[in-house]
């Protein structure tokens, strides 16, 4: 479980996150949804200490992340971002095996694991030795997911992971993500501004407005049945 306790973040006197408290249950998908500028990405990047807190604390399984070395923490938390950010000078297989390799795993072990992960996300063997630039956008994001899974994380952070791929591929990737999450029992925190994605993937949906104020949180079904405000129903496109 990940717990935000009265977390705040200010950038040069401007508040991005104001007194945010939330529990993110383990082995579920929690989706942060809001307009741009709502602070949802900031919340996500706080979990792996990419953004330092101004106030409050974040606990992972009851351990304050302040107590965990940031390199160690980041190697145990998977990270997937919209632009993927594969290393252009490494092959697909090397990209997926890299973190395990530099953490001291043997090359055979790291490579075997990387192959498994690539197969898990549906990348054909024939692509393993190619460079990222030779892949389509959808394939690149699959590799991005495999790379994050290769470190055997319990937690996966995803920032608009499927925002840059076309709608048909996006749905495929969402289905695969659900399948993988169920089979590995991952705790996933996902940021999106796509209402369909949010409703489809979330176990816990958190609707955010300015300065990461929680407008409403709960299961998609609960929220759809009873939106707490005009803002929530507009954001989710709920007709009246």
């Amino acid at each position, binding site marked *: 479980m990940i717990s935000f306790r009265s977390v705040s973040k200010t950038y040069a006197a401007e508040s991005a996150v104001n007194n945010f408290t939330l529990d993110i249950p383990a082995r579920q998908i929690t989706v942060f949804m809001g307009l741009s500028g709502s602070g949802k990405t900031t919340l996500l*990047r706080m979990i*792996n200490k*990419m953004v330092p807190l101004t106030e409050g604390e974040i606990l992972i399984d009851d351990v304050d992340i302040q107590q965990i070395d*940031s*390199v*160690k*923490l*980041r*190697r*145990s938390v*998977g*990270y997937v*971002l*919209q*632009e*993927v*950010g*594969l*290393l*252009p*000078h*490494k092959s697909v297989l090397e990209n997926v095996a*890299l*973190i395990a390799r*530099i953490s001291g795993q043997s090359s055979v072990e790291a490579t075997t694991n990387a192959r498994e992960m690539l197969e898990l996300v549906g990348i054909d063997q024939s692509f393993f030795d*190619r*460079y990222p*630039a*030779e*892949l*389509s956008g959808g394939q690149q994001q699959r590799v991005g997911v495999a*790379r*994050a899974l290769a*470190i055997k994380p319990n937690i996966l*952070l995803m920032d608009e992971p499927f925002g840059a791929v076309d709608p048909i591929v996006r749905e495929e990737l969402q289905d695969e993500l659900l399948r993988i999450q169920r089979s590995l029992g991952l705790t996933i925190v996902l940021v999106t501004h796509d209402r369909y994605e949010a409703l489809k993937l979330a176990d816990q949906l958190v609707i955010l407005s300015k300065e990461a104020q929680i407008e409403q949180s709960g299961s998609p079904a609960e929220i759809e049945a009873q939106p707490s405000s005009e803002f929530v129903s507009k954001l989710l496109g709920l007709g009246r």
Partner: protein
Amino acid sequence: MTWALNNAELILQLTLTHLFVSLIPLGLGFVLAVALARVTPAPFTPGITSALGAVYAIPSLALFVALPALIGTDFLGLTNVMIALTIYVISSMFFSARDAFTSLPPATIEFARAQGLSASQRFFFVEFPLAIPGLIAGARIAAASTISMASIAAVVGVRNLGYLFLDGFQRRIFDEVFAGLLAIFVIAIAVDLSLWLLGRALTPWSRRSRV
């Protein structure tokens, strides 16, 4: 042509000195420029860029003879000239090195940080390899100018290919001067080509992309 054939041994010897005097500053300047570009905090970059720009504007002969007064090197020595050329390489390469490191794909850098690569791992596994094309481009420009500029060191007594200019001019042997010009041009192009090939060999990924 006859002159060159008759003096092949001299030309070879001068060529070796010429390569020595220009390649060592090139290598040294490359490393220093990359280090400087990498460690300079962003707020200082404009200041350093314009200071190095001013240094780059100094005519080489003036720097060759001003350096001894400033740092106490020997007026007519090899070290003096090589330090001056190193300074030129740094000032010519700093900007392109800085550029090579600041124009890396942001998502890749973000990922490397977020997934727990330490600062030195980021440099060796990610930043440096990706900066190679930009660094090589800068090095090629610096190499050609350094090799041709090194000939001016002959005026302060360094016996490299520039010696053929002074000696040939004094003795009115056109072929000698021309041989020097040609030899410098040829080694400058050869070094340029080698750097280009090196860049290609080090960046196989940049030649393949999705069709």
